[in-house]
Structures are given as structure tokens and as C-alpha cells.
């Protein structure tokens, strides 16, 4: 069976216009030090003739300065480099009206964030947080962001490289894609429930099961893509759709993490979330006056 697991660079070529990817250049910014965040592949390409920023992981790269970073892991340099690529994208189109801002395509195949002592001493949480904030800022500024899961989309690394996108697409599990916090066997061990029981329960409740189909039910994946050839048109269609949602002013409800919340309720995967928020709102409305500025 075909797979793109571990082949982030190959995935770029399959997705963008032939020969259009320029690695290491985003707008006015160049990333010319090959030793800086080598696992983070950033650059500019054309997709159906439109300029896009591409951010991917190179699973073959090894960061010699930070030995926990290999196999597509996002370490400190990688997280900040990805954030820089997003800020360079924002800067490149700062003068353009919102509807014409270039899209950002995230090609997702990453097993995690750098788990090391040096990383904790210097604050790995900041690197991944910086990248997420940059993506959220770009999304709110009008840049359509599409994440395409081609391999592993795991836990904290997926949170930074994927879950801040407007829309998330995933190849189906036949292509060995993995989306999870932890494999179900590890979940089973930690929460002390049999794997068999969890697998049985997962048929009705997708919240702890691993895989793109379960994420689809939760609204975490907008669409499953069933062929490698299908990725390119699916991404282009999403970009067009996001642009439309943004120009209608509906992007908040229809795209991004909140859009996935709405989709999760619609698909029956996360139905309690909106009820909780409605209840909080109603309760605050009843006491709101107490917290208004007092008239003197």
C-alpha cells in the first residue's frame, strides 16, 4: 500500500504546481542556514497558480544541536522557524486586502514535540506556543490555512502544526496516517481499561480512539481524502471555500478550531461542548449587571 509517511518533502511536490516550490524563501525572508531547524521545511510555491506558503516536516533530518529532534519531531528551532515562516507570510501580504492574502498549506507528518531536558530548561512550551499563536494571528488576519495530514499527526505536535488551521484534511488510514494523542494500547494501560473494551466503545464514541476516521466524527478533520492524487484538488477547494467563508464574515463559526467545534456537534461526536457554553452565557447574563462599572 502506498504511504507518504516520513516523506514530507515528496508530499510537497505532489501537492503544489510542478517545480514551483522554492525552499527557504517566504516573502522577503530567507532561511539560508541549512543547520537551523533542519526538520522544518518552509518555503513558497504555487498551487493552481496562486502563491502559497508551505510548511512541512522532514522526517529524514536530524538536528545535531538538539539530539531529541529527529524523525519529524518539532523541536525548539523547528517550532520557532515555522513561526517565522508564518510571520514572514503575514508581512509579505500586510498591504493586501484580507480576501487576497496568500494561503498557508501545512503538510502534517510529525510524531511529537522535542521531549528533552534542555528543551524543558529553555522552555519547549514557548516554541510550540509561538507557532500556534502565529498561525492563529494569520488565520484571523484572513490568510486561509489548510492542514493536510499525510502521515503522523500526534498530540502536542499536531496541536501546533495542524490544529490552528482553518480546515484539516487527512489521507485515510489506508495510507498509514495516524492522528492521536496516544495509541489506544497506551491509553488502555494508563487509564486501566482493556483494549478490547475501548475498541468496542470507540464504535459509538470516537473520543479516545486513534485514527483519522475518529477525528472526522469529532469534527477534527473536515474531509478524508481517499487518494494521493485527490490531495491537491481537495486543498485548492478548501482554500476557495475558506476565502468565501472569510469574505462572508462567517469564518469564526465555520473554520478554525471553533468551526471544528460546530462540526463536532453536527457530526454527533462532541455534543456537550455547545451546551456548556450556552449555559455559561445564560448564567452570566443573569448576573452581568453586578460586574458593570458602577455609576457614581
Amino acid at each position, binding site marked *: 500500500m502506498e504511504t507518504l509517511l516520513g516523506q514530507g518533502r515528496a508530499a510537497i511536490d505532489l501537492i503544489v504546481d510542478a517545480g514551483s516550490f522554492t525552499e527557504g524563501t517566504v516573502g522577503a525572508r530567507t532561511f539560508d542556514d541549512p543547520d537551523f531547524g533542519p526538520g522544518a521545511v518552509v518555503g513558497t510555491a504555487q498551487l493552481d497558480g496562486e502563491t502559497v506558503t508551505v510548511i512541512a516536516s522532514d522526517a529524514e533530518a536530524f538536528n545535531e544541536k*538538539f539530539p531529541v529532534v529527529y524523525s519529524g519531531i518539532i523541536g525548539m528551532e523547528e517550532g520557532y522557524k515555522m513561526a517565522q515562516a508564518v510571520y514572514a507570510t503575514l508581512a509579505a501580504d500586510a498591504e493586501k486586502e484580507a480576501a487576497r492574502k496568500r494561503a498557508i498549506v501545512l503538510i502534517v507528518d510529525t510524531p511529537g514535540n522535542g521531549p528533552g*531536558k534542555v528543551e524543558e530548561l529553555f522552555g519547549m*512550551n514557548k516554541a510550540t506556543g509561538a507557532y500556534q499563536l502565529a498561525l492563529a494571528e494569520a488565520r484571523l488576519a484572513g490568510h486561509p490555512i489548510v492542514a493536510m495530514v499525510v502521515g503522523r499527526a500526534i498530540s502536542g505536535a499536531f496541536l501546533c502544526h495542524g490544529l*490552528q488551521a482553518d480546515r484539516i484534511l487527512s489521507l485515510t488510514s489506508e495510507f498509514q496516517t495516524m492522528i492521536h494523542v496516544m495509541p489506544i494500547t497506551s*491509553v488502555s494501560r494508563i487509564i486501566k481499561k482493556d483494549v478490547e473494551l475501548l475498541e468496542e466503545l470507540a464504535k459509538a*464514541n470516537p*473520543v479516545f480512539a486513534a485514527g483519522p476516521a475518529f477525528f472526522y466524527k469529532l469534527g477534527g478533520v473536515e474531509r478524508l481524502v481517499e487518494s494521493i492524487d485527490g490531495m491537491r484538488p481537495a486543498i485548492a477547494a478548501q482554500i476557495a471555500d475558506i476565502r468565501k467563508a472569510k469574505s462572508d464574515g462567517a469564518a469564526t463559526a465555520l473554520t478554525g478550531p471553533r468551526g471544528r467545534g460546530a462540526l463536532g456537534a453536527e457530526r454527533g461526536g462532541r455534543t456537550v461542548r455547545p451546551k*456548556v457554553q450556552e449555559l455559561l452565557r445564560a*448564567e452570566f447574563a443573569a448576573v452581568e449587571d453586578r460586574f458593570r*462599572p458602577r455609576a457614581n
Partner: protein
Amino acid sequence: MPNWSRLQTNSFLECSARDRAVGLVDEGSFVELGGPFDRLVSPHLVALGEAVENDDGIVTGVGRIGTRPVFVISQEGRFIGGSVGEVGGAKMVGIIDMAIEFNDRLVAENPDLPAAARPLVAISFETGGVRLHEANAGLLAHAEVMDALQRARHKVPVVALIGSRIGCFGGMGFVAAATDAIVMSEFGRLGLTGPEVIEQEMGKDEFDASNRALVYRTTGGRHKYVMGDANFLVDDTVAAFRAQLADLCALPVASFEAMRRIGSPELVEKQLRGVALAAELKPTDARDIWRHAGNNDPVGLADGPLSDFRKSVRRLAL
């Protein structure tokens, strides 16, 4: 209801989430939203036959400090490690959203409304991050909280308070990093990958999780203060956290940008100077970084009283 005055002298570390929520704001001002009587339990824990809590392990509400409405989110580590699932995540996002919406309404009515009357969000973290019993929903909730924090930028200050037993790890580690200001006690811990997980993944040579002093030196309040990751290092009492929060309540939202660690290209450049230093210094212990920052006796500094530490410590300049 706990006795508010008595609460003030309590150890922040020992306090429950509800005591922290009540004690951080003015006496008698806290109104819990989505409280235990609403029975917002996790349906996923029910499906697994697990015990539930009627607030899903997170206290949310609104109170007041002086004239400022303070929206409070307080995580309870005693319930499944303060883990975040669908309900807890929805409560967090709901509270931040309401603070933003309330701010927008108040400012629309009175554009000159002084900072001290505008909403602020305080998050008392005590969490290991995603709840594994509902991991996928927890992951999606984390992304929503990050999105809400970015929406709050330049409107509603968000202050992180970290000094509870579990610390603040996993996905919530970067949520905390993304807030405007971080207040810690020396017992607070902040990070991404917890010590046990590093030991398990990388081996005991990389990180000995049973070495408590090492764990605190790596992710504890004193170290995070040296690194600039904690803006303020306070005593371990509710009153001390509250006093720091009250000081911050006097500030306009623009003042908080200067306290941020991440959230702009300039701050990314600054953090990258730290990363370059990490590559150069190859520290095996926080002490190496403290020394580099100009502290000649890191051992004495780490072991001495907090008041001496605050007075004499040199923080890392990037």
C-alpha cells in the same frame, strides 16, 4: 463557602481549585458559572464507567478585584490530574469568550472606560494537559483555548497563576506560555513534557524523574523566573497571588504586551537567542544557565529563602 479572610493565609499549593477561585478575587464577589449544581459532567467518563465530578474538575466564574471584573478559570489537580476534556475545555473557552464579549459591550457603550473597569481573565493552572479518557476531544479543546487567547490579545489581559501541586504541563504548558503574564510561586512548575515522560522516552540518564530537586530546578518557579518565563515570583499564599493579580488589574491592556514571551516576530527572535544559547551552553542542569546569567552561587541561591533570591538573583538577559 470557605472563610475568605482565613483563605488568604492558606498555602496556594494546598488549596483546592474552588478556594483559589474564591480567594483570588474580592471578598464575596465570586459568582461561579457552570458550578457543581449544573452537573456538567464528562459524558465520556460516564461511558467508560469512571467516576465523574459535577464541575469536571474545573471551577469557572467571575468576580471582582476593585472595579475590575475578573473572569476566573481554576483547574483542580485532585480530579484526574486536572486533565482537560470536552467539558473542561468548553468551560475555559466559554469564560474567555465571555470576557471578550463583555469587554466589547462595555467599550462600545463607553470607549473611554478606564482599564481598571475592563474585564481581565485569570487562569489558575493545575494540569497535565489532555485527559486521556477523551484524548481527541481534549486535543481539540486545547486548540480552541489557544484560538481564544489570540482573540483576547489587545483587548482582555490573560494572567496565568501557577503554584499548584500538579504544575502546568502538556498542551496546557503552551497555553500558559501564550498568556500575557505569568505569576508563579517557587512550587509552581511549568513545562511541556513532564519529567516522567522524558525519563520514559529518553532514559534515566537524560532525566531522573525521581530526583525531585532536579525536577524543580528544571521546571520550577525559581528557574522559570530566571528564564523570564515567569514574570513574577510570589510567596506560596493565596494573598500573595492575589496581591500580584491586583497589581496587574491596575494596568491597561497595552502594558501587558511588554510582559509577553511569545506572540510577535520580535519575541520569536528573542527566544531564538535563548535557543542559540542552549546549543552553545549545552546545559545539563539549570545551574549552568543560572551561572551564565551571572549568578556565581546557584546552589546557595536555589536553597536560600525566597526573599533573598528575589533580591539578589540575576535573570537571563536575551
